[in-house]
């Protein structure tokens, strides 16, 4: 009778355990779904390390500025050249866009009485509701970045228009890329 060493035994046991626990995940091609728990501790692929919002960040949502109507009291022409553009389904700030934020911060420093209303926008390819949320996160990302550059929180406000205020109504990739933006508006009052 062959002696079974401890090593062999433990190897066999481990192998069995591995085989037992790597079961069949639902085949993505089949249309049968299932239920699984959302572990909110798992990092999401969408998270940009420089822009984590919500309870985890120190930056709360800005209260609305008193007596300001975003429709009539914001001038988007003054800083229009510093409109920040985003990648598809993303609210992270591309490194190529950071120079614009430096310029916006400098302008705010040079114009100490002025406040910004940053509007967030998307292309049309998500749902209406989700795009409103994505536009919001783009505007908040700008705000967070500017606060990181030293601008006081109470000088920057945000609003999202989702896909509802496109810069380009075309249905092509160029139009889509022009719509994925956050616009720094100057509050005129």
């Amino acid at each position, binding site marked *: 009778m062959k002696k079974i060493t401890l090593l062999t035994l433990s190897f066999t046991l481990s192998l069995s355990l591995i085989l037992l626990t790597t079961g069949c995940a639902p085949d993505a091609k089949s249309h049968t779904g299932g*239920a699984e728990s*959302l572990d909110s501790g798992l990092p*999401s692929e969408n998270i940009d390390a420089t822009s984590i*919002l919500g309870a985890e960040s120190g930056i709360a949502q800005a209260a*609305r500025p008193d007596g300001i109507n975003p429709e009539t009291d914001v001038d988007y022409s003054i800083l229009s050249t510093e409109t920040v553009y985003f990648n598809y389904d993303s609210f992270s700030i591309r490194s190529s866009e950071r120079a614009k934020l430096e310029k916006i911060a400098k302008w705010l420093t040079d114009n100490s009485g002025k406040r910004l209303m940053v509007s967030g926008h998307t292309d049309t390819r998500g*749902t209406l*509701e989700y795009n*409103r949320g994505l536009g919001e996160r783009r505007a908040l990302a700008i705000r967070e970045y500017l606060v990181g550059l030293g601008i006081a929180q109470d000088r920057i406000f945000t609003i999202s228009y989702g896909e509802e205020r496109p810069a380009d109504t075309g249905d092509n990739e160029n139009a889509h890329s022009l719509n994925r933006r956050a616009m720094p508006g100057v509050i005129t009052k």
Partner: protein
Amino acid sequence: MRSQYDLNSMTKKLYTVLFAASLGALLSSSLFAIEVEVSGTKKIAVQISAFQGADAALAQKIVTEDLRRTLMIDPVVSQGSYSVAASVSGGSLNGKLTDTARGSEVFSRTYSGELRKMAHEFSDDILESLTQVKGFSTSRVAFISGTQGAKELYTMDIDGANIKRLTSDKSISANPSWSADGSSIAYMSYRSGYPDVYVIKLAQGIRTRVAGFPGINSGPVFSPDGQQLALTLSKDGNPEIYTISTSGGSPTRLTRTRGTETSPSWSPDGKQIIFNSDERGSNQLFTIASAGGEPIRITTPGTYSAEPCWSPDGSKIAYSTRTGGGFCVWVYDIATRVAKQVSPGLAEDPSWTCNSRHLVYSNNGSLYLLDTVTKQSARLDNGLTNCTEPAISR
């Protein structure tokens, strides 16, 4: 000899039993096949006789179009399996459905009230009588129409009649939803300059702002008991799902993720809310207990599932899934966990009718009625352009 006789007798009995069983199987399978065909794409031919009385022509037109719109009935001029007749006078309509093959009456009923309402009720009774499927012809559809400059909130009868524009905000309106009793509509509007949630009490014509927190207030949907709204708020940073009393006040937060959650829909028993979240990369469906708890993923095929709508019978979720060119509407069956496409092509914003079989959706600026069993659709014409986000009353 004796055993042979027994064998023959037994064999005969065996063959008889086998034959009977096969015949039975054949018969029942063919009966099943016939049943499948009827509930498949084959429509029931129903002959519409000339209605009698004042406003008869209008009533006849309404009933004919209602039946056609169900996508289960083919209104014909002659030789239908069934025939419909009615006489209209003053505030009453006497309607009758006859089985033409048997020559027997299926039902005859008197309706009272306004002409269109009577005709729609008659249509619903005809559908239910013939198919056991509850009709939706008396339902109203809330929707958004307009272009960027001014998207306003409208309601209309399902046949495009009685169009009412409810807002003149000259702003962006979105997300209409009905209370279960049809008395109120919640929606989102930028009329204040910001995206806020309002509730309109239709009979009184009163509109109240229910949520105007910092950030986004959107996607309001009434709980089945009409006491609360589930909605999307970003007042605490990123868009999450909350509930709030329909009279406003302090909201209760339900989700707490680093992702974006939007588009809630209630289960018909009010105990759960389904929504989409991109917490795992791109939008997928999750449910959460309305009293609070951990979100649970509902696994659907594809890389992007959103805009869920829970069927009134609780058994299914209609939702949009993103394809290359746009969105299609799929239905997920909760018991079997199987999802399948139900829209014939591009479609979004699904909203179930009262029968959990038909739903309305929008595509390319038009609204459509869909039979999710046969995947046939009918456009809802209303003379307006750029129509989106239909919500049908139940």
